């Protein structure tokens, strides 16, 4: 005995079962492909060249109390190859350059993003970036950011056509200490005016360049394979 509703139910049941099977197959094969290509051991070369600190007093630059905040930008080199990440279940890759550091007050641990990029296809998957400026101006929880030792890492997220999101980290990092500026005095006496706070910084540009060479800038790109 067949009725319309019964037939409808049978068809949907079967469609659901098969689509679950297909989804499972796609997820399993793409996972196998990632393991095969050893993507979790992808090497990277990061080199931080320079940094630049601006003092801002807007809420959109981290200042809630009206006190000026130090906003840091960096210039960096980066080399990584994301070509093996692409298989039939890769919609795009989101690669992001983070810096980890410890704050001294309240023993905080911090991770901040300086730069990121959406890699949409295999043709653009080789990143070879020379002296690029970071996308974001980063501030700390505290007013001052200079003097912190940052550990830069390149991390990635595979966004699939269907299934789980895969996260990982490339092998290789770079440490860089944000140089302490001499204009600190200008920023520490609660000067709300940005223009006056930025002037002495321009004067110090030469001095900073000299200091930059001294800054700890070691590049440790080891391949754990």
């Amino acid at each position: 005995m067949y009725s319309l509703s019964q037939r409808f139910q049978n068809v949907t049941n079967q469609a659901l079962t098969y689509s679950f099977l297909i989804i499972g197959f796609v997820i399993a094969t793409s996972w196998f492909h990632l393991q095969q290509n050893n993507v979790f051991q992808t090497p990277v070369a990061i080199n931080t060249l320079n940094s630049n600190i601006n003092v801002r007093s807007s809420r959109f630059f981290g200042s809630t109390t009206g006190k000026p905040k130090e906003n840091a930008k960096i210039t960096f080199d980066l080399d990584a190859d994301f070509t093996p990440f692409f298989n039939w279940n890769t919609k795009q890759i989101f690669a992001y350059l983070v810096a980890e550091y410890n704050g001294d007050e309240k023993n905080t641990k911090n991770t901040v993003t300086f730069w990121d990029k959406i890699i949409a296809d295999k043709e653009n998957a080789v990143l070879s970036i020379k002296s690029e400026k970071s996308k974001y101006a980063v501030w700390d929880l505290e007013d001052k950011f200079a003097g912190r030792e940052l550990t830069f890492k390149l991390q990635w997220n595979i966004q699939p056509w269907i299934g789980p999101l895969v996260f990982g980290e490339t092998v290789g990092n770079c440490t860089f200490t944000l140089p302490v500026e001499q204009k600190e005095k200008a920023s520490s006496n609660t000067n709300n005016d940005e223009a006056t706070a930025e002037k002495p910084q321009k004067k110090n540009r030469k001095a900073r360049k000299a200091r930059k060479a001294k800054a700890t800038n070691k590049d440790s790109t080891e391949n754990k394979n």
Partner: protein
Amino acid sequence: MNLRLELTRFLNVCFILSSTFMVWKGLSVVTDSHSPIVVVISGSMEPAFQRGDVLFLWNRNELNKVGDIVVYEQNSKSIPIVHRVLREHHSQSSSNSKQLLLTKGDNNAGNDISLYADRNIYLDKQNDIVGTVKGYLPKVGYITIWISENQYAKYGLMGLIALSSLFSTE
């Protein structure tokens, strides 16, 4: 008209409704999130997530990492937002485990500070995060957007259910 038959049918409908509700609430308990499955409404995470895509959430993690895609909801703004964590700050001592997060949509130019309630510049992991996105299913959720945003679809669906209950004879 058989009263016993009608009552059994009514009981069946009740059973279906309550079991659906139990599955949903059970998922809530397992994932520790008040809405463990969400449908993307805005395009701020394009091209990764488009309108109508379904996301599966998990909220048993104590801390979020940078790069995680989270769904957050602040009490004064009831629309849940799906964005990526740009920064995280947390205390290492276990007594004070408050984590502050700054988020940004991949497709947006700037961070989310202008979206946060009460002039906050950070989200609080404990209170504001609904869940972290773990899995993705494309397009399937479009039917819920279609139903909730199109009144004819709503009435049409109601009518269809009413008609089928009238004509169903077993």
